[in-house]
């Protein structure tokens, strides 16, 4: 009997599996934001002067910017002075073998194949814990192929020319409020450089983890794919369960030169807050890819199940002729979660193509908005876009919203947008139930079918994880 009871309890407590805290000695900068703090942060990271200046410039600009309010989100005011902008595990590892076992254990719990497991999985991993990167695997193998995959801090030291050439060219310092903040205080992130003609021999992956209390995470990722290269990059994120909101403001920049392809997949599972909307991560992210070269391709795939608030629009600037942008998204909001997410496809080059598949699922009191822009500039002869946005409603109190913007300035462009909203039909449910499926299983199966178009774009391991995440996140949504 006792075992049974535990089983049930375990099942009930399954909600947010990544919600543990790792007790690790951490070094902080005092909370608050000022030029001084930024200089300290930059000094701690031993950064060259140009980097410090860049940060200060961003900070000064940020001070002049108003907090944006256009998204359909209810956000309690953020006190930027109460956040600590730097938190790092004290024991600095020299190599993966020296990494604090507790840390490795954390990633183990999260299922991140950081160490030997990585060898089996064949994925190179960079793990970012609070503010700093704690270890990157498979360096040697990647170096042989000529691929640079390291933390942003290392890149600033070891490849300053590359970083200076590309950093901030896709998302400029003054792009938006949270991007400017990120420029000022970003602590780490991943840097990927795929040289000309190289097909990256394995999938690259980064795991982000916010662990310390009262900290924000501001990572910055830069991926550059030179002519004819290919890379698939995966990103996952988790955080412990806490009662207060924590801020995550990341910037991701992708640059694809002629014939290059970048595939960027995200499974976002930051702590979503509890049933009553207490706690959870504020996830304000700027992601943008620049298809600079002809025939280049950037593909974003995201599964957004976590965060109290998600505010994120992975975009493609289709500058090169015949370049392609893709966006596949599943966003789920349950309980009091809010998401305002979508994409921007800016067609500048000739014969550029873009495709948007966005699936929103709202349950509980969740509010889910798709916001997208498809813009065809005067130069974009033969541009083509197809957009499909579907929303699924589970429950009476949730909301699903669609805000597409379509701006076309070239007469040869073909732009199509379709959106539908409905709930899971009683017929579908009844059919599944009559075949002996429980209600939750039935819902989960229908939701899985609803998301299939997006899941099939994910690398296999991620697809499995994403499916599981959806199931867990939807628990208790029906009935």
């Amino acid at each position, binding site marked *: 009997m006792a075992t049974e009871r535990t089983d049930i309890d375990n099942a009930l407590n399954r909600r947010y599996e990544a919600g543990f805290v790792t007790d690790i000695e951490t070094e902080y900068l005092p909370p608050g934001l000022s030029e001084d703090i930024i200089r300290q942060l930059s000094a701690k990271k031993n950064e060259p002067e140009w980097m410090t200046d860049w940060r200060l410039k961003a900070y000064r600009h940020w001070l002049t910017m108003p907090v944006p309010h*256009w998204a*359909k989100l209810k956000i309690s005011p953020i006190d930027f002075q109460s956040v600590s902008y730097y938190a790092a595990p004290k024991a600095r590892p020299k190599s993966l073998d020296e990494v604090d076992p507790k840390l490795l254990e954390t990633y183990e719990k999260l299922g991140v194949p950081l160490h030997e497991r990585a060898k089996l999985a064949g994925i190179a991993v960079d793990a970012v814990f609070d503010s700093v990167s704690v270890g990157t695997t498979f360096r040697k193998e990647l170096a042989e192929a000529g691929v640079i995959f390291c933390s942003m801090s290392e890149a600033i030291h070891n490849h300053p020319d590359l970083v200076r050439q590309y950093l901030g060219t896709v998302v400029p310092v003054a792009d938006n409020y949270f991007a400017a903040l990120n420029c000022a205080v970003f602590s780490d992130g991943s840097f990927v450089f795929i040289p000309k003609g190289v097909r990256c021999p394995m999938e690259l992956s980064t795991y982000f983890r916010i662990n310390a209390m009262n900290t924000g995470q501001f990572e910055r990722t830069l991926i550059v794919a030179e002519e004819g290269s290919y890379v698939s990059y995966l990103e996952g994120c988790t955080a412990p369960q806490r009662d207060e909101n924590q801020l995550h403001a990341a910037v991701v920049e992708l640059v694809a030169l002629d014939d290059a392809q970048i595939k960027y997949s995200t499974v976002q599972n930051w702590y979503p807050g509890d049933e009553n909307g207490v706690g959870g991560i504020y996830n304000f992210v700027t992601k943008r890819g620049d298809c600079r070269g002809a025939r280049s391709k950037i593909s974003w795939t995201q599964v957004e199940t976590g965060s109290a608030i998600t505010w994120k629009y992975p975009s493609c600037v289709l500058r090169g002729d015949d370049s392609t942008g893709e966006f596949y998204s599943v966003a789920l909001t349950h309980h009091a979660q809010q998401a305002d997410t979508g994409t921007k496809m800016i067609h500048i080059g000739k014969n550029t193509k873009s495709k948007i598949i966005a699936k929103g699922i709202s349950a509980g009191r969740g509010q889910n908005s798709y916001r997208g822009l498809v813009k*065809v500039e*005067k130069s974009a002869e033969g541009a083509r876009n197809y957009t499909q946005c579907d*929303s699924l*409603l*589970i*429950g*009476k*109190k*949730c*909301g*699903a*919203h*669609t*805000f*597409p*913007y*379509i*701006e*076309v*300035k*070239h*007469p*040869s*462009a*073909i*732009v*199509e*947008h*379709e*959106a*539908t*909203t*409905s*709930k899971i039909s009683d017929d579908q449910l009844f059919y599944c139930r009559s075949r002996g499926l429980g209600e939750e299983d039935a819902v989960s199966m229908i939701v899985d079918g609803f998301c299939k178009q997006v899941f099939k774009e994910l690398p296999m391991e991620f697809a499995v994880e994403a499916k599981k995440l959806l199931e867990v996140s939807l628990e208790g949504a029906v009935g």
Partner: protein
Amino acid sequence: MSVPLLASLEQAFAQLPAAALQAAQLGESRRTHLAAALADGLPTARAERWRYTPLRALERRPFVTAAALAEIDPAVLPAGEGPRLVFVNGVFAAAHSRLDGLPAGVELLPLSQALLGADARDLAHLARRFDASDDTFARLNAAFALDGLVLRVAAGTRCEQPVTVVMVGAPTTTDIAVHLRHLVDIGEGASLRLVEHQLSAGAQAHLVNSLCHVHLKPGARLSHLRVQCEDVAATLFTRTEGVLAGAAEYQRADLELGAALSRHELNIALQGNGARLRSNGVLLADGRRHLDTRLGIDHIARDTRCELTWRGLGADRGRAVFHGGILIRAGADGTSAQLSNKNLLLSPHAEIDTQPVLEIHADEVQASHGATVGQLDANALFYLRSRGVGEAQARTLLTLAFCRVALDDLDDDALREQIDALLAARLPEVAA
């Protein structure tokens, strides 16, 4: 920094006849609205609702108000029988209007008269309607509008003859600003057809700011056609605020064919269970025309329906802007909402901006929208050419078919012919 447009209006307000302003004791409310409008100023492109329609050029132009009734050639007025109300430069033109022999149960008169002879009930009724104002143009309208259409249909009245209202812009030496306020009230179970013409009797660059209130009582039915053929230099701000009670049915078609700048906001609240709205329209943005239509459909009650079919054409240096907002509130279960906005972009200098928006807070709903921007179907063109139809004619035919989808609901043959003629006259040039 003073804005010439607003400064000129402030001056014009001071010159309006005191008696007319004070009618129905609205003087105080008018002054309050004017002060608020002047304080707010015109919306800038930073305002989300105006992001595609800049008003910078308009802001710099001064306008006066029309002093006396201008003469027009009656030939510009649309043909047709039945009750008719004509306004020339915003002033009621009795000579061109037909108000005798109104069917029983139909009350039709200019607002200027209604305001003077108002009894207590009407007074409250009208004052309430002068209250709604959440943007500068609505406020200006509340301050200035001295005339317009008052149309009331008693419960159970089925009026066979269409009621026509014509707003004519006549040339003057100085550009004028016209403010009109219309009130349409259809009683329980009553039905009526209303045809609204906005046209021009010669070259002019007036500013017309009109606001129309439509109230449909339970089971009422209104078919409303609006044809906008203003002068190529005119500027229009039109706003319709509709409220539909239970099982009421509002069928509407809007043709935006003229003006330099025409902004139309159609806000409909489906307040009663089972209320239905069909709104179709065509935006023909050729020349340097800027047409901006903004729908705000608010589903409040259960089992409400809306079907919105809009077509846009962008030719020459024209710009067609469309916003189709559908809000389904919590509790509006059983709602069905459908929006289709298709656009043809026919020139490298034209632009189409479309934004179909769904906001849904209820789960027992079916909502969908589709928006496209493209060209004429090459296969259809080829087919017509293979049947011996010349290129130009084939393009015109296909463009006409594209636009006519939005007019399918029109059940008046005579009107349909009129509109077909209007389109047929314009399309060959547009499609070429």
